[in-house]
């Protein structure tokens, strides 16, 4: 209490007259000078500390430099004065967020004076290692205030401090929790946005020490200190490639995974242990801790380059969390969001998960283990039917539940990005010849007949099914072609289910309903079913006595069908024709034409679908472009464009972003006049926020890139070839030009070859001529030879005749006794003669 009397004396002055505060403060400031005794300085500091709260500006203006000198010179000598001066400085620099601007500026001004050079900061870094508890603690607190006010300046000094990092890290091992926790808090802010400090921290072993703390504090079950330590770890890793590679290579990732109970070395074909899947989540602190761990696991799952063992283990941990655990819904959502977009590291279809569902009425204390299922099936199940098959949420659409299904949908979308995968999935829905079409859950949900009164879970299922199916078809012409041949089982509710629909107000029955021509012809294709359900939904929506809430659900169904059809019929003339043949034109025109419609969404979508149909109606059929064109002009081209533009301005459309597409349900369920929290409202759990979806980002993205083509396309003459010279046709022309160029080049090449060949054939001709002439020569010579032979024969005959005549003559001469020569000799002679 000594300092109180000091204040009194200072205030009253030696003569007892009251003095102004400024005088007093000035007097105390004088006493801070090093020439006074230490005890006097200490008393002055204590007095100033008392005044600082109420006279912040004066104390700051007159004594700040003196106080800083005291800190510099006395703090290490005398712990009491050190503590007091630090506490005074804290009061002077503190910035109260709720204070008026002038008061806040004062705090910043003082901070700037303190940080004008690096002396004070260095002193504080040195004091962090001081032996006195209070000195250490106050230094940390002051540092934390300075960091809060002027982070970058402190960070700059910290990097240059010779021992700053080492002593700060050493504090993480301080036995006194309060110091250690303050150090964690400082690390949290000092590493913020400074990769260099983050790296030095890693070098100095911050990861290891932080994990020691976490493990020492019972891991996830630990208190807020675990949360702070995890926040530091997250801060050291996020956006810091170098630290991530350090961390990945260390022995810590397995520890991280085991914090959430996931065995780091779990073989791929072994199910996760139950202590991972089923945990107690009652303590909010545990949820906060788990959220942070999941965040870091997500960082490790993402890995540039081919997936390694660690990233696969992390991805699996996230997937198991999301699909087969009893973790809180928001943690599941977070985990599924973090599954890397290139899920090729994880074979979803082959991976087996074992989902759990809560036993009803046990308040989440007992759980049933379901049959093991492939992760892909579990994923689709989750998307279509919600967490635990909606056992808990029932009729309500909780925002958390919708977020979870949305996150799962995101994984599905990434998974079917590869065309061969989406094709294979669509192919599996086509009936093999001789057998019935398989009733996949997706197909079942997609073709569920909407029946009035609608039930919310079923609408949600169908809506999600349209989103799933759109992901399968959007980018793959071949998947679209295959999807056209899908004929859902007659037994499934798509078949003749339309008969169940009885309009309550006796309005006109839906066209596909009363005379059932399609049913009579045999089972309908999926596209026909969708167009029929769309028209059912339109009719139901048009009923006058429909309650608002149900009307909204019918709207949702229409949106789902329309979005799917738009993406399906885009660039698929065959599907357009089939859709037109199912009588779709009339269905679409009416909603567009509605004038007393404050809601722009459905007319906008209908206009867009109509535009798509007109644009891609390129196959010969009954309903040609020439048939549609008058309808468009009657509706008015400008009106159609207007519809398209108004959709873009719709809140439900604009609210959709790449990562978020769940919008809060309008507060229709809580009448606004009821006082908040009134239990009389009779709502089961009014604190649970409800959410709903209308569009997904993929559709919004699709719509944004293509609506202009359609807007132009509807204004084009029916005989015009392609769309109003959109980018695509330009690309098409370019690619065709390429083809032509290639073909020209090829022709040229072939011609050259031809020339070469014909040159060769000239040679052949010459040879052939030669052969002919030679043959001729041969023939002539043969002829000559034959002639000669014949002549010879003739001559021989002649000779023979002559011989026989001669013989006869000889005979006659012999008979006449004339001298006759020997035959042989004669003959020889004669032969010789002849020749």
């Amino acid at each position, binding site marked *: 209490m000594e300092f109180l009397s000091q204040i009194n004396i200072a205030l009253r002055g030696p003569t007892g007259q009251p003095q102004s505060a400024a005088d007093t403060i000035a007097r105390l400031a004088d006493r801070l000078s090093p020439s006074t005794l230490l005890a006097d300085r200490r008393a002055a500091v204590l007095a100033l500390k008392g005044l600082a709260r109420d006279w912040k500006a004066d104390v700051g203006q007159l004594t700040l430099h003196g106080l800083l000198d005291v800190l510099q010179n006395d703090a290490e000598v005398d712990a009491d004065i050190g503590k007091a001066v630090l506490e005074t400085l804290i009061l002077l620099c503190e910035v109260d967020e709720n204070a008026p601007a002038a008061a806040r500026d004062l705090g910043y001004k003082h901070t700037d004076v303190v940080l004008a050079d690096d002396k004070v900061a260095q002193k504080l870094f040195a004091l962090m290692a001081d032996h006195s508890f209070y000195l250490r603690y106050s230094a940390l607190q002051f540092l934390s205030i300075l960091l809060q006010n002027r982070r970058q300046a402190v960070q700059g000094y910290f990097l240059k401090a010779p021992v700053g990092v080492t002593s700060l890290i050493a504090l993480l091992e301080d036995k006194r929790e309060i110091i250690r926790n303050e150090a964690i808090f400082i690390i949290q802010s000092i590493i913020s946005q400074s990769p260099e400090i983050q790296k030095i921290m890693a*070098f*100095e072993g911050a990861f290891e020490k932080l994990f020691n703390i976490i493990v020492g504090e019972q891991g996830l079950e630990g208190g807020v200190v675990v949360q702070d330590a995890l926040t530091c770890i997250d801060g050291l890793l996020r956006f810091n490639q*170098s630290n991530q*590679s*350090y961390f990945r*290579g260390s022995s810590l990732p397995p520890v991280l995974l085991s914090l959430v109970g996931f065995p780091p070395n779990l073989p791929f074909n072994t199910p996760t242990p139950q202590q991972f899947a089923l945990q107690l989540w009652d303590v909010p602190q545990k949820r906060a801790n788990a959220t942070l761990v999941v965040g870091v696991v997500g960082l490790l799952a993402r890995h540039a380059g081919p997936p390694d063992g660690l990233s696969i283990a992390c991805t699996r941990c996230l997937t198991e969390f999301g699909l087969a655990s009893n973790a809180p819904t928001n943690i599941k959502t977070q985990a599924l969001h973090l599954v890397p977009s290139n899920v090729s590291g994880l074979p979803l279809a082959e991976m087996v998960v074992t989902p759990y569902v809560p036993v009803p009425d046990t308040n989440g204390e007992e759980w049933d283990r379901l049959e093991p299922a492939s992760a892909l099936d579990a994923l689709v199940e989750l998307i279509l039917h919600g967490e635990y098959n909606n056992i808990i949420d029932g009729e309500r659409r909780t925002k958390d539940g919708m977020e979870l299904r949305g996150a799962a949908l995101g994984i599905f979308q990434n998974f079917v990005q590869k065309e061969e995968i989406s094709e294979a999935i669509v192919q599996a829905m086509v009936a093999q010849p001789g057998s019935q079409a398989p009733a996949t859950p997706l197909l079942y949900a997609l073709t569920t007949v909407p029946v009035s009164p609608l039930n919310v879970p079923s609408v949600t299922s169908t809506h999600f099914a349209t989103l799933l199916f759109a992901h399968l078809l959007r980018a793959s012409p071949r998947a679209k072609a295959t999807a056209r041949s899908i004929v859902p089982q007659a037994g499934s509710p798509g078949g003749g289910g339309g008969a169940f629909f009885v309009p309550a107000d006796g309005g006109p029955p839906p066209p596909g309903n009363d005379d059932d021509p399609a049913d009579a012809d045999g089972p309908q294709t999926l596209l026909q079913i969708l167009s029929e359900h769309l028209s059912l939904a339109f009719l139901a929506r048009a009923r006058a006595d429909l309650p608002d809430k149900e009307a909204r659900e019918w709207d949702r169904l229409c949106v789902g069908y329309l979005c799917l059809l738009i993406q399906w019929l885009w660039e698929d003339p065959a599907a357009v024709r089939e859709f037109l043949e199912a009588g779709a034109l009339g269905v679409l025109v009416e909603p567009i034409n509605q004038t007393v419609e404050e809601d722009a969404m459905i007319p906008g979508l209908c206009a867009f679908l109509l535009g798509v149909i007109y644009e891609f109606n390129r196959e010969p059929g009954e309903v040609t472009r020439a048939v549609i064109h008058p309808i468009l002009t009657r509706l008015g081209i400008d009106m159609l464009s207007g519809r398209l533009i108004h959709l873009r301005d719709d809140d439900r459309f604009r609210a959709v972003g790449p990562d978020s597409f769940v919008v809060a349900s309008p507060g229709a369920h809580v009448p606004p006049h009821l006082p908040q929290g009134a239990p009389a409202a009779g709502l089961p759990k009014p604190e649970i926020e409800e959410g709903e979806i209308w569009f997904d980002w993929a559709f919004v993205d699709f719509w944004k890139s293509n609506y202009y083509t359609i807007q132009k396309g509807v204004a084009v003459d029916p005989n015009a070839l392609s769309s109003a010279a959109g980018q695509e046709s330009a690309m098409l022309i370019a690619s065709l030009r390429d083809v032509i160029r290639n073909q020209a080049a090829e022709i040229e090449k072939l011609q050259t070859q031809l020339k070469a060949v014909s040159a060769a054939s000239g040679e052949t001709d010459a040879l052939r001529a030669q052969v002919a002439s030679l043959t001729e020569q041969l023939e002539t010579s043969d002829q000559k030879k034959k002639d000669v032979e014949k002549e010879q024969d003739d001559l021989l005959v002649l000779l023979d005749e002559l011989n026989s005549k001669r013989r006869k003559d000889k005979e006659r001469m012999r008979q006449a006794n004339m001298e006759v020569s020997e035959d042989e000799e004669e003959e020889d002679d004669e032969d010789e003669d002849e020749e």
Partner: protein
Amino acid sequence: MAGVAWHYVLKFIITGDAAVGKSSLLVRLTDQRFLANPDPTLGVEFGSKLITIPEENKVVKLQCWDTAGTESFRSITRSYYRGAAGCLLVYDVTSRQSFINVRSWLQDVREHADPHLTCILVGNKIDLCADDAGAAAAAGGGPRRKREVSTDEGELWAKEEGLLFVEASAKSGENVEEAFECATRNILEKVRRGVFDDDRSPGVKLSKPSSGVALNEDIRGSCC
């Protein structure tokens, strides 16, 4: 996940003038490739590698911090000296200036680092002047430059200062791993002699070979 198995974790730093090839040496060590046109390092970059020292029958995990050579980062990089067990002091054999500056880098190291730190002087880029080593073919037709620091000179200075010495090429890979191994052997030798028994140097950590959850052993090694 692959079992983590090593006996020691050693922290290395790589320092020296800008553009002498520090990052390239590290990338050659960790990725076995040559970093053709690296950007100047900002602050520090991390890389790690497991090596085996057969005669000691020990697996050692090298944690290497590659520092920036640019002057503006010098105060930051100094923070890394204290905790390191080994240091690669790099110069460029075709740049006399970088060799002269090594003295000031060494002074920094002496001033800030643990006195038991093992320092190895590395003359980099010998591929550029491979002709005087008689192995012209290895140079591969790159821009040939004149050697400005002879092997003898480097070796002599290293001896005077009590440093290990090696000449290497990050481009060809020659002697890169050897440089790290040589320093590692020296550190393990010091460990055997008990230099680090008081465990004052945070740069050396003993870690029992283990697979999976290694935290406990790890902690014991680091903080007892």
